[in-house]
């Protein structure tokens, strides 16, 4: 299993992680956290406490919009989806992270995949 990344670093990567996931399909909070953990093999994890303030912040900026849906079992889920503004953030954010990895690599010899 991949070594878990500290909460400070994973929190910083939250925006791009959430935007990338939601660019594929709308998801509700629990599923977002679950998929981030699964796709990063447990390296990045988000709890309720770290995920929702970030989702609300991104919603306030107009990057995400949310709506309630109920499944057959009567369980409430608030689905988040990307807005056109949110979709526009993805490319610059990816570029920003790429530059960050390059800079870190040059400085500390940390190569990225």
């Amino acid at each position, binding site marked *: 299993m991949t070594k878990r990344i500290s909460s400070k670093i994973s929190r910083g990567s939250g925006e791009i992680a959430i935007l990338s996931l939601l660019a594929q*399909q*709308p998801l*509700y*909070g*629990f*599923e977002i956290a*679950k998929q981030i953990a699964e796709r990063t093999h447990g390296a990045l994890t988000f*709890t*309720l*406490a770290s995920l*929702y*303030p*970030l989702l*609300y*912040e991104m*919603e*306030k900026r107009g990057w995400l*919009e*949310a*709506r*309630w*849906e*109920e*499944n*057959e079992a009567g*369980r*409430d*889920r*608030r*689905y988040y989806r990307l807005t056109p503004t949110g979709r526009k953030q993805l490319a610059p954010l990816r570029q920003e992270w790429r530059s960050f990895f390059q800079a870190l690599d040059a400085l500390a010899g940390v190569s990225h995949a």
Partner: protein
Amino acid sequence: MPDRTKPDWKTFVSKRLSAVSLPEAEHNEIIRELAAHLEECYAHARSQGHDDEEALAVALREVADWPALAEDINRAKPLEDEMNHRTKTVWLPGIALLFAAGLVLVFLDRWPLLQRFIWIACMAMLLGAGASEANRLNPRTKSLWLPGFASMTAAAIFLFAADIVSDPFLFFRQISLHPQDLLMNSASPRSFYFVWLLAQVLFGALGALFSRRAGGTRTARIFAGALPAIIFVGTYVSLTPITSMFSGKAATSPLPAYVASALFVWVAAPAVALLLGAAPFIRESDQNRIAQSC
């Protein structure tokens, strides 16, 4: 700690997030969402083979510091940002200006045509303001009242527009006050009526579609699509007997038959048309199906 046999997560979260200072509707929505998340964690842990106590512990580990979470939420959703910039700078001043102009014209009793345009613009701008603030509206307003208002505005605009292009006195004299005449004569108002009826299909679809997009339940979608007909019920039940008293022709018709025909023309037939339009959007969306399969 929630009851171990059936955790009441809403009460649990509500007690711990009392420090969140947001409007009641928004506060309740956050509690609902976070409680749903904890419920998912608990159910997921149970499905992974954890016993009740372990599943509870897994769910509770999601938040180590509730006061810190309340602070983070307050920071993420500050009160001062309650209304968005566009609403404050465009919609509200526009509505206030138009409303004032409309009132002045009413008091002066001048330019009735312009007055109608102003009221239509006011309704449309109110709708724009509502849509602009949709993120901040509570779920019922977003999925029921706002879409209902959209279909009602569309229906009203159509009536006003027809009123402007045709002879309003002929229209109201021959249809509104005497709906039974539709079946006997008056070709021009009759053709207008049937076009109007067809347009209700579109308006019903509009209300139900908006409601579905806002996550409205089936009942909310039906209500939003059929709202114009519901308003017509209120209007005609209260106004028809009154207007008939002032109409010389109404004296020749018995009042119950008159009311029944008015209800048929203005309520039953439009309701059928509205629901016909709403029907495709009353079914579950793809997104709902995705949600149900999760």
